[in-house]
């Protein structure tokens, strides 16, 4: 779009019933600073055009030109033949599972011995990040000296892509903090990346091609400084003997894609694990670490959990990670080679809810990791995958805990006139602080009072 486009011309493209969608699309594009719309004037019709920056960058990107290397610079150096996609997948999986393990291992009570998985563990920088993001917190009653938080549980039950983003956002925040802190102390912060540059680097990574080597030297210095952290997360791989190349892993290349790509993560991981070893452990790991979200659970899903209507649960897995996640809300009874059995009980679910896990999260996890056999049986009989009695009961157990809802705030009472009550409660409703009202008794409850006080004062003055 080289020249500005008149809005009236745009209207010709849009059907009458699509007006709302058009307005919404325009406002989104405007808020993203992709287009500009001239203000309405008498002599000139309204026009819209791409913002200069976006126009230039888009053109540059389409042509693949410029010195910004928006899609990375492939390395011209010879590539080690051992570094193939399977190798990268294995590497990314190992790194990411180390992180998940670290979070899981911080659970204070778990039924099974987890086999000292914390020995390797993620780098200290990653641990600090998890601490700073309050996914775990320092505690003395656990083996690792840290304990999991509510946010940590939510994190564990997320799908892989969401987990990666959660961690990356924490990282961006942390980087911003340290930068402002150093600026405050008067240090030079030129070599420190700012979060905008970091974010655009991440987007660039996401557009790279899996299994290809890229040139480290083509990156700016600040971006090169980011590489070690990304290596720690498992987003990129740098060969030890040759640091002039970096390889994006599947975790990085699927950053900006949606669930369909995530499925390829999981199937890719599954493929990688079948290549290297066939034991149940790694299969279980792949399903725990990188399963697609339950709503589009494909038939290729490596599910492993069977639940019976009597609340018994069997999981065909030897993965400490998945077992630990299950132990969050299941009472595990026995462990065999490649399988654990347990039950969902009122206590186990209540404990999980006490940790901050919701019933819906548990149900979604179970459905997403249901064994093939369950999915097949359900499809054959046209019933839901999980036994409805179990699903309902999990929800009921959650409701039990919510016997009362609380809201802190202020009770307004003893109004002089009905008018005063109507005006103030109406105003409270308008500004969104009204929690509860009783028109008969002329009392209401609001979450904040400052604005209401000011409103009342100005009302008094007006009278």
């Amino acid at each position, binding site marked *: 779009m080289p020249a500005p486009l008149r809005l009236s011309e745009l209207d010709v493209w849009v059907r009458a019933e699509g007006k709302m969608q058009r307005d919404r699309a325009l406002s989104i594009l405007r808020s993203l600073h992709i287009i500009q719309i001239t203000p309405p004037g008498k002599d000139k019709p309204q026009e819209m055009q791409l913002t200069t920056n976006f126009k230039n960058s888009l053109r540059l990107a389409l042509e693949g030109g410029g010195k910004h290397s928006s899609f990375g610079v492939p390395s011209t150096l010879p590539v080690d033949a051992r570094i193939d996609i399977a190798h990268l997948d294995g590497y990314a999986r190992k790194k990411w599972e180390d992180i998940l393990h670290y979070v899981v291992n911080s659970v204070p009570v778990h039924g099974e011995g987890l086999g000292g998985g914390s020995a390797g563990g993620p780098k200290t920088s990653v641990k600090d990040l998890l601490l700073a993001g309050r996914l775990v917190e320092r505690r003395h009653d656990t083996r690792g000296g840290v304990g999991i938080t509510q946010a940590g549980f939510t994190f564990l039950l997320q799908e892989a892509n969401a987990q990666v983003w959660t961690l990356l956002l924490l990282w961006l925040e942390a980087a911003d903090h340290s930068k402002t802190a150093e600026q405050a102390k008067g240090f030079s912060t030129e070599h420190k990346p700012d979060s905008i540059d970091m974010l655009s680097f991440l987007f660039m990574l996401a557009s790279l091609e899996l299994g290809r080597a890229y040139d480290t030297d083509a990156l700016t210095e600040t971006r090169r400084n980011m590489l070690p952290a990304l290596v720690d997360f498992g987003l990129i791989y740098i060969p030890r003997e040759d640091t002039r190349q970096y390889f994006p892993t599947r975790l990085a290349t699927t950053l900006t894609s949606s669930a369909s790509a995530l499925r390829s993560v999981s199937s890719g991981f599954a493929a990688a694990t079948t290549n290297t070893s066939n034991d149940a452990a790694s299969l279980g790991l792949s399903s725990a670490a990188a399963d697609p979200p339950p709503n589009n659970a494909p038939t290729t899903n490596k599910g492993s959990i069977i639940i019976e209507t009597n609340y018994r649960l069997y999981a065909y897995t030897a993965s400490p990670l998945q077992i630990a996640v299950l132990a969050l809300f299941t009472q595990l009874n026995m462990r065999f080679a490649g399988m654990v059995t347990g039950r969902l009980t009122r206590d186990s679910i209540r404990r999980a809810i006490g940790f901050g896990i919701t019933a819906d999260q548990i149900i979604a996890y179970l459905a997403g990791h249901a064994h093939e056999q369950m999915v097949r049986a359900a499809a054959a009989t046209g019933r839901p995958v999980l036994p409805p009695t179990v699903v309902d009961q999990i929800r009921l157990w959650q409701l039990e805990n919510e*016997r009362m809802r609380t809201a802190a705030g202020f009770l307004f*009472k003893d109004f002089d006139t009905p008018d005063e009550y109507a005006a103030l409660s109406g105003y409270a409703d308008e500004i969104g602080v009204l929690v509860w009202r*009783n028109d008969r008794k002329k*009392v209401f409850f609001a979450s904040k*009072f400052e604005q209401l006080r000011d409103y009342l004062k100005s009302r008094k003055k007006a009278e």
Partner: protein
Amino acid sequence: MVRAIRGVLIECEPAIKSIIVHFDSVNNDIIIEDLDETHLVVKENMVHVLKQKLEERLKETYRPEEPLQDSE
């Protein structure tokens, strides 16, 4: 003159409310205002205590059957 009182609004079933009213009847140190069948305003610092008391109380009266005992 209108008054604003700091507190915590509690919304619950009438049965739970009557238990809370019962707790309050001992020292009158919990409830600020009894609003209606299902609503109460209580003192902010008592919410935690109240929750604990309620949990204990419900444990006494409410013993749900575990669906099935394990044969294992």
